[in-house]
């Protein structure tokens, strides 16, 4: 097995170099996020497609507790902010970075807990993924988002762990940026999902 560290390294800066100067991992993460956005866009469209016909919308009105989920959502939204603080702290390598990371992870966990709670309640009302089109589209959409949140949490934990291991093998700026980009993305997706699934019905 070859060690390709040199192979990956960018060519030495040259007067004629015309490459994008952006960090490769960040660029890769952005493209990946672009792809993921398509995926969620279509899941959301699937939900919207059934919203008015077949009373999916009214179903949502009937079963969903906007206020409670709203609270948990705020946890998620604010976690984006705390992550941003963590990054800034890390930039001027202050110890606060670790603290903010912990807070971020905490908030993310709260959101997931909230979702788990919501699911169990719905299922108690025997509203399951296989009951009707509302169940089908609702659980598929929010479920996939939840899954992405969990992945995000894992990434955050890894980042945190690397940070915690201290100065000599420090997490790279780029590495941290990638994780936070992903987390912000998961967050933005929830803005869209929340407005479509929970808030839309107020429009009618």
């Amino acid at each position, binding site marked *: 097995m070859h060690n*390709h560290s040199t192979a*990956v390294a960018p060519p030495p800066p*040259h007067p004629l170099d015309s*490459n*994008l100067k*952006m960090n490769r991992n960040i660029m*890769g993460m952005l493209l990946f996020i672009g792809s993921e956005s398509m995926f969620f866009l279509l899941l959301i469209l699937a939900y919207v497609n059934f919203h008015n016909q077949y009373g999916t919308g009214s179903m949502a009105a009937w079963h969903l507790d906007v206020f409670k989920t709203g609270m948990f959502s705020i946890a998620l939204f604010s976690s984006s902010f705390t992550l941003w603080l963590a990054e800034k702290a890390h930039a001027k390598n202050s110890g606060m970075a670790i603290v903010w990371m912990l807070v971020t992870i905490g908030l993310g966990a709260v959101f997931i807990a909230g979702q788990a709670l919501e699911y169990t309640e719905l299922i108690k009302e025997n509203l399951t993924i296989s009951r009707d089109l509302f169940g089908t589209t609702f659980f*598929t959409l929010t479920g*996939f988002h939840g899954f992405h949140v969990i992945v995000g949490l894992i990434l955050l934990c890894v980042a945190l762990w690397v940070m915690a291991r201290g100065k000599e093998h420090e997490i790279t700026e780029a590495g941290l940026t990638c994780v936070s980009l992903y987390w912000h993305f998961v967050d933005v997706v929830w803005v869209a999902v929340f407005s479509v699934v929970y808030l839309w019905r107020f429009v009618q």
Partner: protein
Amino acid sequence: MTDSALHPHSHKPVNWLRDVPEYQGILSWLTSIDHKQLGILYILSAFAFLVVGAFLGLLIRIQLMFPMNHVISQEAYNQVFTVHGTTMVFFVGMPLLFGFAVYLTPLMIGARDMAFPRLNSFGYWVYVFGAIMMFFSFLAGGAPAAGWFAYPPLSEKGYLFNSGQNYWALSLFVTGIGSVATGVNLVVTILTMRAPGMTLKRVPLFVWMILMDAFLVIFSLPALNAALVMILFDRILNTHFFDATVGGSPLLWQHFFWFFGHPEVYILILPGWGAISEIIPVFSRKLLFGAGVMAASTVAITFLSFGVWVHHMFATGLGFAPLYIFAVTSLLIAVPTGIKVWSWLATMWGGKLKFTTAMLHSMAFLIQFTIGGLSGVMFAVIPLDWQLTDSYFVVAHFHYVLVGGMLFSLIAGVYYWYPKATGRMMSETLGKWQFWLMTVGFNGTFFVLHILGILGMPRRVYTYPLGMPGWAELNFFSSCCSFILVFSILLFVYNLIWSFYHGQIAGPNPWNAWTLEWLCESPPIAENFERVPVVRSRRPLWDLQFGSGGDGENYHA
């Protein structure tokens, strides 16, 4: 291998793939993260599946050879064409794309490897795993049988209850993820690893088309994955996405699938176009005509191809406006594609043509692709599609663009780059034989299918009644020719193997070509370039030879 540049052996030129010190032993291949090895693996795997797919294609032709024929049962037939289509598109077309892209891109832009070598091997192995998963369904109680676009409700478990359809969906989902990974890898490589002086205006057309192709992959495959998730949930978790009885929508699947499906067909053809754009100039000894416009038209096609998907649904009665918009976009796409055809012709015009096997395939490609494209335009005229959709005319169309287009151009690519990859030339004698057999076989097999469509033969029929005018004769003729076709492939495979051992040593630049990959040894050393070259034009090697004029300025014969 960090210090390979210092290793003595990487200085004395190695002129045969088997002698490359880094590539000794199976393990060096299975564990490789070297873009050249992975590229070769991709293409070899594509071959393996191509042989399977071709065999299935042949089976189709044998079953359809006579009316009311019963070589295989209707269930078997439905599985055969489903697996044939799926294999050819996902396990032959895609890996060929990635194989050529991953092998050539770094060489052509003067990089030492892909941006993410490990991600690169991840992509390959995920593809292998996915492909195997689909073929595993044969053991696990029945292959998928809903056709390669698996329209529900037929693909729901109420109608196809064996697990084959689940394997089909899972397998495509997995390979889809790998494809996106490799797509990302390619974009980053092209945007950040070009040699000094190689501006995006100067990258070889092949690289440019791969760049567009990668964008197509990144943004269209998620649509397929979303659709696959839904059908899987319908089948496994009893959801109702496509179940009309409780308000689900079969049309939703059609929209989602084709939103992926149409970009997919350009994903398949773009590497072919790229190969042609490299081969035709070299064997016409001329600069590619209107390279800038070529690149621009590729961008146009990339964007347009996201806006034509409903042309696969013209017979679904969606109403005037929703259909007509997509007729317009589908017609428009003919214009940039046309620009390519004309530019390739103009490149040959006034050149000094060398009719190598690679060149012959490229020229056949040009005509066959045009025919396929034109039948595509006929579909874009909706009223004609109302007559022709789901008839054998469609089968003729897409085999002209896929076999006569994609495969002919990629075979040309194989003849052209084989010396670079293996260090040895392919046999031109065998090549010429294979070319003529394949051209005759291909056109014989698929041209008559146009007529069958016009005579009202629907596609995907396991047999057809006696006494339909012309059906028996035309099908018989097509089937006979398909034997020639498949024989030509075997000849091709034989040529690949024979030349590997007996082909003459190629040397770095056997075709006297102009792009960077021909600057490396054949096969290239483990890190491609001793020194990363500096690029001043579209044709760096021309500049090396004549000092200047790579972009066609101030050169007089």
